[in-house]
């Protein structure tokens, strides 16, 4: 009785170990894209930065920082709907990240202003 359980446990462990490097690879690749995007943004190459951060979230859709950076690039482009979605995704992944919250609050202030449509 104990043998099949042990075998199952080994299989699960094996799968988990195999998955760890794959996830780590994804995070590593995504991080490289994020880093490059940051360098591009610092040189005001926002188009390149946007592309890199889009790639980063494609490679690792669980990377909150990448979504945060992507949201900033969208905001810089005036694409408020896309920025909001990206910020919300970043906060969903890391709800307690004060820096993402800070960015999102500042974004909302501007977004509210942009969405005011006058009196009629």
């Amino acid at each position, binding site marked *: 009785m104990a043998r099949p359980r042990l075998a199952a446990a080994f299989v699960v462990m094996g799968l988990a170990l195999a998955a760890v490097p794959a996830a780590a690879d994804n995070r590593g690749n995504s*991080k490289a894209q*994020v*880093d490059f995007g*940051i360098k591009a*943004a*610092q040189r005001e190459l926002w188009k390149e930065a946007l592309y890199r951060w889009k790639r980063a979230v494609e490679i690792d859709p669980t990377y*909150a*920082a990448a979504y*945060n*950076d992507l949201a*900033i690039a969208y*905001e*810089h*482009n*005036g694409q408020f709907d896309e920025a909001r979605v990206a910020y919300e995704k970043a906060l969903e992944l890391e709800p307690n*990240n*004060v*820096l*993402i*919250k*800070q*960015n999102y*609050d*500042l*974004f*909302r*202030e*501007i977004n509210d*202003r*942009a969405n*005011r*449509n*006058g*009196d*009629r």
Partner: protein
Amino acid sequence: MIGRTATATGSTRRLVTFGAGALALVLGGSGCVSFYEIPIETPIQAKLDVSPFQRVHVVGFIAGGSDDVDANLETVRLLRSQLRTRSGLRVIEADVLPLAEIAQEMNAKEAAPADAAPEKPTTDKPTEKPGDKASTASAEAVDPAGHSSKVEGQAAGQGAAAQPAMVRVRDEKSLASYEPIFANVEYWKKLGEEFQQPLIVTGTVLFTPQSKSGMVSQTREQYDQLGRRVVVPTRVYMERKGYILRPKFIFIDGRTGTRIHSETFREERLYPSQQNVPALSSYFELMDDVIPRFLNVLSTQKVRGTRVLLK
């Protein structure tokens, strides 16, 4: 941070943001996270398509409230100067219209419909000053909607239609009674024709004194037993006075005379009662907050700020 109810949510957000920023600095300093502060310019698209217009005409406002500031004249001057430097439209320089008087005259004519055709807009007429009137007598008159408003320079027994009076608008209620002028398509169309069909900017401006007393949140610096500086939030009773500015900007198509957009704002500034702030200074402080939003109706504005990029 004194008494700005209009941006209360914004202020709260900024406070939270400041706290988060401070925390970020602490975390960053200790090497816990990798982040980079970056300046960004967020474009906010113009709310109105002004491509059919080459010229803009800020004609005048129905103004009221404090006697210390001629809100009509000051608002026209300020908006024209801002539009001259921060929009692509050519600004028409013409005399400021005493719109309240014109509105009153119009309403009086409508009340007595027996007379002839509507009068031509008085665009080339110089701005009338109270001193220009023949009589300086002061009287309490009833505005077109039946509200009491102070009228100067109008001799007793003269009809309002015959001689436009210096109108004193005190509150929003009496201001509302003059508003039908903005729906007078014929009037604005004629005015538009006269100035080669520009985008017309008009509206109402109420600049009223305000005083409040009550508990106010403040921060006070203190030093603890170890000599470290600490900031302690406190609540103190204060008497404050200041002004409320309520401008309503109405944008009219000079080709058709129809209203195409309107925006209403409300800004408030309160100062400690011992601080003697001139009304005109307060007016400009309040308009400073309104101007970017006004300009955003006509042109794309870029809002400068900073964000934090994360690794």
